[in-house]
């Protein structure tokens, strides 16, 4: 990330019976001759409009030795282009009351600008100029400058943050060395130093072409006028070469790996991670619901046992990290003083076994689904920023082919039964295919989770 920073239709009776809610975001989609995908959505509830630009490139498209490049490039996108002098991208947007940011993940890079609706043309100009004419104004000094900023970002979020190196160690052990999910989006310090000006030009020509991008505009707009503006600003940008598919080796874990790291922390923390089904593929929603049943709220199984009842842990979380080439599911537990990670692990293991043997109760499942349903409703509140409607329209389009996938997305959670959850736990949360990472205070490796005998 660069900074640190309705029309939905309700069917009759939907308000009284939330289970009948149909969540939909009407849109118009068209494709320019140069291949730019465009999605428009009208919402006149506030005099605000957002422009969201999605490039289908992320750290997953990188090569070993050049990690962190997609994200470094995201930073360079704000440093000026042919008709936008350095520093003016932010200044001009702020001068109309606008806000902007961008983010990179393994699968995509997104950019957004929120502006008052009378200023819509400014972000269209800014985005088209950097899509069409970024390298015309690129210099080695700009690359060096943002290289330093990104290294600072890495220090702040990884090196200088307690447990900050955990996600790197997990990725490295879950995926084979040449798999693009084996390295972090932020990249390694060595690779950031190695990135060259030529890399910038090549990356831009290949991935930042209109045929690899999608423009989503939502808010206080009229469809016809907005379409005219999009054609005016983006129609002249030439189409690029087809983007080569990602050549990733299969990610399969065939054993349990145990890793121990020492860190400047007071309490030991245990991470257990598995490879799980890709975003929107069968099993993905099951794992999401399992994360809630294990760690979402006081009555979630791991929370109740480890944090609430026994009080051997300070916190517990479980997440399905959904991504295109495959997902990972991670359980994280911080031990209280006086407790080892081996002790935590065996208690955790008991709960996982229970879940594999016997389905959760209907109430547990319904409680989880009800919480997801509200999170879907709240996605309709914002048009802009990360996770606003414009961002989701782009996300859904690229991952499912349907920008308005809101209802289908929720429906896949509602279709899951309690037996499915046990089956998913048995299939995906195997003891013999996972990474067990212990992060312990410096010099206290005896607190790490050691292999339990007899299983």
């Amino acid at each position, binding site marked *: 990330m660069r900074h640190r920073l309705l029309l939905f239709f309700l069917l009759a009776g939907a308000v009284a019976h939330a289970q009948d809610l149909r969540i939909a975001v009407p849109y118009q989609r068209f494709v320019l001759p140069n291949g730019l995908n465009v999605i428009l959505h009208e919402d006149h509830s506030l005099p605000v409009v957002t422009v969201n630009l999605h490039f289908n490139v992320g750290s997953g498209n990188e090569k070993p030795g050049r990690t962190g490049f997609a994200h470094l490039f995201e930073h360079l996108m704000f440093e000026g282009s042919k008709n936008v002098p350095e520093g003016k991208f932010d200044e001009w947007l702020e001068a109309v009351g606008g806000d902007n940011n961008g983010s990179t993940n393994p699968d995509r890079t997104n950019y957004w600008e929120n502006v008052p609706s009378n200023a819509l043309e400014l972000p269209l100009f800014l985005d088209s100029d950097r899509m069409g004419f970024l390298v015309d104004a690129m210099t080695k000094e700009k690359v060096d400058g943002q290289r330093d900023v990104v290294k600072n970002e890495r220090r702040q979020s990884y090196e200088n943050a307690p447990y900050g190196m955990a996600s790197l160690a997990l990725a490295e052990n879950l995926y084979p060395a040449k798999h693009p999910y084996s390295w972090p989006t932020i990249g390694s310090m060595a690779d950031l130093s190695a990135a060259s000006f030529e890399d910038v030009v090549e990356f831009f020509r290949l991935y930042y072409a209109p045929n690899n991008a999608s423009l989503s505009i939502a808010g206080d707009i009229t469809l016809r006028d907005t379409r005219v503006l999009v054609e005016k600003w983006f129609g002249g940008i030439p189409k690029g070469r087809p983007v080569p598919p990602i050549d990733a080796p299969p990610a399969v874990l065939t054993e349990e790996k145990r890793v121990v790291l020492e860190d400047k922390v007071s309490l030991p923390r245990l991470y257990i991670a598995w490879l799980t089904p890709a975003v929107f593929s069968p099993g993905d929603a099951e794992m999401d619901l399992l994360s809630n049943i294990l760690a979402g709220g006081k009555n979630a199984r791991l929370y109740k046992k480890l944090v609430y009842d026994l009080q051997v842990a300070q916190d517990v979380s479980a997440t399905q990290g959904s991504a295109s080439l495959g997902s990972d599911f991670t359980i994280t537990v911080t031990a209280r003083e006086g407790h080892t990670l081996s002790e935590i692990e065996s208690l955790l293991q008991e709960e996982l076994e229970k879940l594999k043997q016997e389905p959760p109760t209907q109430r547990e499942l319904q409680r989880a689904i*009800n919480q997801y349903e509200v999170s879907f409703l709240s996605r309709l509140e914002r*048009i802009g920023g990360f996770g606003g409607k414009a961002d989701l329209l782009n996300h859904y389009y690229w991952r499912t082919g349907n920008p308005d996938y809101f209802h289908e997305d929720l429906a896949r959670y509602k279709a899951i039964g309690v037996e499915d959850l046990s089956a998913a736990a048995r299939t995906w949360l195997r003891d013999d295919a996972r990474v067990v990472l212990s992060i312990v205070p410096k010099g206290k490796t005896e607190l790490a989770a050691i292999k339990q005998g007899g299983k």
Partner: protein
Amino acid sequence: MNLPALQSLTLGNGIPVSVMERHSAPLVELHLMYRCGTADDPDSKPGLASLTAAMMMEGAGARSALDLADAIDFLGARISVDASHHTTTVSLFTPVSRLDDALALLADIALRPTFPSAELERMRAERLTAMKQWKDQPRTIASVYCNRRVYGDAHPYGRPGIGNPKSLAAMRVEDIRAFHAQYINTANLNIIVAGDVASSALLSRLETYFGKLSKGPGSTPALPTVQQVKQRRIVIVDKPGAAQSEIRIVRVGPVRATPDYYALMVMNTLLGGSFSSRLNQNLREKNGYTYGARSSFAFRKGPGPFIAGAGVQTAVTDKALAEFMNELRAIREPASEEEILRAKNYVAYGYPQNFETVGGIAGEVEELVEHGLPSNYFSTFVPSILAVTADDVRRVAAQYVDPDAIEIIIVGDRKEIEYGVRALKLGDVKVISVEDALGYE
């Protein structure tokens, strides 16, 4: 900007209710805002307001802590209780279809918490552990020490809201019961609602739960007076092996009620309140010292702190600090009309975004109610910002940003940074441990 009207209603017993309707999603945010908070902690029991707030979720009415959490989660609703300096807010976020069920739970939490002693023991252990973990977090250490340094342990703004290990260890259920009885009662209550509701239907529901209660005692003690920072002093908090130095520059700022509020918003935006602000442009974009530099005024009932800061590479700690000083001096000089206009527009025309979500609206209304701002405040905000002049900006910079009277706090690796920081000759330099900074072992 055309916002829905802010409706001011009253329950039968006089409790004020503020409603702003927004119908873009079938959601409701409802806040019970009590005028009491960590500033009302007895000096002998810092952390009491915060612990009381947390304990309200640990059993209420006929429900245990687990049953209560299950009931809320089953609705898909979210309820939390948070104590800030001068308010304690019970917040509800729910689909409108489940508002009735959620309101019943909310009323139990606010009016009938049970404060079980076993839950207090659990909460105590959790908080003591969290405080232990603070030692690992450079940014938390910087934040805690900034406040202690400027306000001192005797002022509520100088203390962490959750108290300290000693006070927490001494807390009893009776203390919590007494605090709840004295402060979390209808004499101190405002109800704030935002979302997909009609105020008329809402009012009768609220009457059921809150309309028949008699008012409790209530009271709001005065804040101790604050001494402004008088000279420039530097403290290095030694964090051996830190990959960055967390720099903070702090002094006492004005109260929320200051007539300079709008001018300060504009001045701070160009100093360190936006991406293209001077601090961020200098330290991040021009010099590459940091991922981000910023500044802010904490506007409260009493004079809150002004804080500027950044996490910078260890090796450039001294250079970064010198640039902070340069910018604090330069902001007192006249700024260009263009720069001021940009800052004004950024604050004014970005304002409608605060009203996108029901939570955002409730937050805005809560600020209005807490500080007694006029009911037309939302519609006067934009013109008030646009009316700020270059003279105003220079005047408030000169008045509130004095680079000769600041506390400078750096959490970083002493052996790497001390020499360079001393060489700047900015003032007396003291080195302390993380434990000294936090105030406990």
